């Protein structure tokens, strides 16, 4: 369990360092357009279904152009879906007014809003996952700093990221050692969890001390300078115009019903 999550995280992290067209887009541009995308999707009213469909072109483009394996992202989306499903499933139970009629079937408004929640859920979650799968975490931090997120917080994110994998590996070793010697449910209870976390905590504090020493050894004086300079390229600018344009178009015009009306006359 821990092992799989650890390796999944590492995999996602490695994906973010690929070199494709999508990966090369400036992180600021990707962060801004992802946020716009999410707000546009979420701003659709409760029962909107058809209007949301064109938005799926974005994850599809990110998946294909960014060389991101679809099944991997799908699995991650399914993994976090329970809360949204749990809350959303009450809608069809509680709202059974008919919404539309199709070939003799009546679909209730509750089901419409449930489908709407699920569509929004897959769109927004895949937006977050695809953002990190196509942009390195330090890149996102850089973008956040440019968007005026406080420096102390950005530095904190970068530090966390740097030691994430180190500490997860340490935790994984401890968990393996525990699981190797615990059988059935014995050994996995709170009684053993507490000292395990305690030991990990103390090791962490000691590590912080060593890191601090290493920082001092290199002249640390409370400031962390950043050297990264990204310059916007032509393709960045085209990307932002194209994505903002499409997002607005999809939000304002319901392409799905429009196309449907054309074809059905």
């Amino acid at each position: 369990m821990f092992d799989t999550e650890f390796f999944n995280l590492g995999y996602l992290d490695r994906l973010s360092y690929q070199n494709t067209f999508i990966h090369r887009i400036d992180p600021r541009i990707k962060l801004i357009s992802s946020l716009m995308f999410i707000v546009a999707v979420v701003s659709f009213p409760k029962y909107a279904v058809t209007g949301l469909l064109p938005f799926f072109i974005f994850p599809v483009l990110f998946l294909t152009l960014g060389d991101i394996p679809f099944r991997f992202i799908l699995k991650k989306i399914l993994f976090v879906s329970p809360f949204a499903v749990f809350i959303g499933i009450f809608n069809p139970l509680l709202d059974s007014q008919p919404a539309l009629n199709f070939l003799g079937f009546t679909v209730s408004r509750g089901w419409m809003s449930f489908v709407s929640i699920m569509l929004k859920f897959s769109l927004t979650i895949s937006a977050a996952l695809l953002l990190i799968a196509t942009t390195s975490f330090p890149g996102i931090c850089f973008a956040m700093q440019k968007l005026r997120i406080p420096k102390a917080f950005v530095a904190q994110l970068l530090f966390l990221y740097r030691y994430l994998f180190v500490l997860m590996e340490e935790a994984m070793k401890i968990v393996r050692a525990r699981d190797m010697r615990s059988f059935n449910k014995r050994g996995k209870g709170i009684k053993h969890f507490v000292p395990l976390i305690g030991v990990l905590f103390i090791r962490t504090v000691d590590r912080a001390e060593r890191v601090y020493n290493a920082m001092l050894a290199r002249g640390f004086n409370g400031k962390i300078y950043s050297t990264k300079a990204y310059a916007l390229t032509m393709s960045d600018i085209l990307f932002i115009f194209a994505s903002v344009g499409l997002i607005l178009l999809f939000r304002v015009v319901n392409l799905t019903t429009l196309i449907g009306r054309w074809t059905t006359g």
Partner: protein
Amino acid sequence: MSHHFVEFKDVHFRYPDGSSALNGASFRISHGESVGIVGANGAGKSTLLMHINGHLLPSSGSIVVGDLQLDKHTRQDIRKKVGLVFQNPDDQLFMPTVFDDVAFGPLNLGISADRIAERVEEALDTVGCLKLKDKPPHHLSSGQKSAVAIATVIAMRPDILVMDEPASNLDPKSRRQLIELLKAFEHTKIVASHDLDLILDVCKRCIVIKDGRVAADGPAEAILSNKALLEGNNLELPLSLQKQSINKESTSMDDMAKLNHLLHHWKEHNDEHAATYREWAAKAEQAGKSELAETLRGIYGAAKNLSSLFDEAMKKT
């Protein structure tokens, strides 16, 4: 430039919990020397290294690095002279990318942003890791991490390179690469390690620490081939020498083999000294002191003769 680069005089150190780690350590390390520091676990090696860099200040006694006496006020300046490479590269590399990490020290030294790239690339190139510069540290192998950790320190251009267990966690090939890398450095080097073969390869001189004191100090070959001394310090002969001594025991030529080793070591030292004499002779000439230069050349000639005598002796052993 002062001759003695690091000088410990009767240094004592007691941790806040009352345990004493150094009990009168004294030694001098000169410019250009490579010194191995060995000793049992808890003998005080790490504490000693932490003093060279001013992380810890002696409870009593004095430490001089370059021309600075270590105290609260000079520790910042001393850190500019002394580059300390920590045992675990994960502690050393705390920035999100290799480039940022190597740049961290120089930026703190006040190097301007436009010259930083050059400095970083030079340091990475020295350790053969230039192509890793945009990677995050957690994507590196252990060997790469160790090399980059060294680059983070040499980017600051220290006079003295201090390393704590540089080769722990390395596979044999990476370890060998690291040894070659260290041998190539012209810095003053101080290496603490249990890897006695590494010390033997990299260092000319060796200091044995026991109970916070210097138990032995001398040429690495001599110290590391002294079985009794090493075993008295929870150490054992380096593997490379163990093999030799097995061979020697079978031919009962123990002492001769040892002498041969020593001669070899002496000659190496002598050759190096000879080169220095010549350098200084040239400098004296430039400064217009031709008589002094003449004498120095005389010393150089004598040293050359000495070298051939060592060769002769080696043939006879």
